[in-house]
């Protein structure tokens, strides 16, 4: 099994850390993982993206031209990456502010209303975990247990009181994702 994933959105949405948690969860399950960020000026206020690969085998290129799954959290990312999903692959997008939804019919498109839901429920800080929950509902490449272990390891101890809120967000995201 190999899942090649692109996660893209605005800087500050937690795109890079979502990818990092996913990669770390893969590590917790003893899988091969690679996390490759777009670093540089785009990180500072513009669009941010990272490629995450989770596999049972040795990983080849950290840089890809097509993806099994694209998780796209704003219109510019959707416009840029829709065409790069492999036929039969998965596209998940947050519906907030999307004027041009995906049009491809040879891939599976899902929307997730995470941004608005997070704002309504006062869960802005765990928005990215909500999206991750949506993804894991569709592609359980790692277990929720592994994600929680990864959060436990990567969050500084003073923030461990936030672990239940993160788990709640993941579960909420699993409910929110729609085909």
């Amino acid at each position, binding site marked *: 099994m190999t899942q090649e994933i692109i996660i893209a959105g605005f800087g500050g949405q937690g795109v890079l850390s979502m990818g*990092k948690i996913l*990669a*770390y969860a893969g*590590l917790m399950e003893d899988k*091969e*993982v*690679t*996390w*490759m*960020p777009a*670093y*540089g000026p785009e990180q500072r206020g513009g669009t941010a993206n990272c490629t995450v690969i989770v596999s049972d085998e040795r*990983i*080849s*290129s*950290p*840089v*890809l*031209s*097509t993806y099994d799954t694209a998780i796209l959290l704003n219109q510019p990312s959707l416009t840029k990456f829709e065409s790069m999903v492999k036929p039969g692959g998965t596209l998940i997008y947050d519906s907030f502010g999307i004027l041009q939804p995906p049009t491809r019919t040879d891939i599976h498109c899902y929307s997730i209303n995470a941004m608005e839901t997070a704002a309504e429920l006062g869960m802005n800080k765990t928005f990215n975990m909500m999206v991750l929950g949506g993804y894991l509902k569709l592609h359980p490449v790692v277990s929720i247990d592994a994600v929680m272990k990864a959060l436990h390891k990567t969050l500084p101890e003073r923030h461990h009181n936030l672990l239940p809120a993160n788990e709640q967000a993941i579960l909420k995201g699993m409910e929110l994702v729609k085909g």
Partner: protein
Amino acid sequence: MKKETVLMKGNEAIAHAAVRCGCDGYFGYPITPQSEVLETLAAIKPWETTGMVVLQCESEIAAINMLYGGGGTGKRVMTSSSSIGIALMQEGISYMAGAEIPAVIVNVQRGGPGLGTIQPSQADYFQATRGGGNGDYETPVLAPASVQEMADMVEESFQLAFKYRTPVMILSDGVIGQMMEKCVLPEQRPRRTNEEVIAECPWAATGWRRADRKERNVITSVDLDPARFEQFNLKLQAKYKEIRDNEVRYELITPEGAELQGDINKVEADLAIVAFGSAARISQKVIQLAKEDGLRVALLRPITVWPYPYEQVKLLAERVQGILCVEINAGQMVTDVQLAVQGRVPVEHYGRLGGIIPDPAEVYEALRKMWHK
């Protein structure tokens, strides 16, 4: 600290590996895309645990000259920078080659020329493998292709540096430096004691007012007596020959995607790719794409880019109908491939410039065009 499996960036792995292999001193100046090396060292504060010195210098020129001083005392010292900073260090590296001082220098390459871009590149291949500074010297250069190799090559480089009394370079790039992968960090090894350094480095400036030493050890690269200096240069050249004879490292991936164990004469392939570092990782994906189309492509990845695996590339050329050299530059290592192949089969180059990383699909397209010619 015990052996540990972690998820981290290549740059972070360099820093952790340095501390754990008993490095005595790191001297550096921040520059994207390698600033995490210095940042990580500052965060883990090895001066409180192993006693390792970590110093942010006023410039790269200061850093390389501190390496000259530290290495001259037989200590394990290292620096890291990116392209432009490494260009500034060339005078110091040449002095160290001339004074036969061991040290490790990490280049996490970005695009040039000049101030260029902060995005990844492999355009410092010539600078790294052709000496870089003035004079007849060479520097062993290791090219990591994974976060694991970033960690492993620190110790490996120190071994080479002290075995041959030479600066050693780790030639990485922004892809390998910035990406995170699973990495096994080695167990903490103690730094060498002063007594161990004196015993292992009889040439070093370790103090001479001792019963066992009658004369000063002089660490210098200057000699104004041509006859004597020619002898010294010949001695250096003999050392470089010894390195060429003994330290060539490479990896060969078969068209099936497996690591070839043993003889290159067993390779069954239509074409071959030769690529190092991150370009070799991208090329591994290209091999898979080719395999799906029934095209058999082998990959030779030089792990040492100096000394270069000329003999292995030559043998590989006899097993295939053409070689594509994939580099993130305008065509530098391809000259070494051509030297090895000597016109036996067509050799082409594919690369991107300006900080753009070639993706597997475009490399495969170049390979397909070559095949259908």
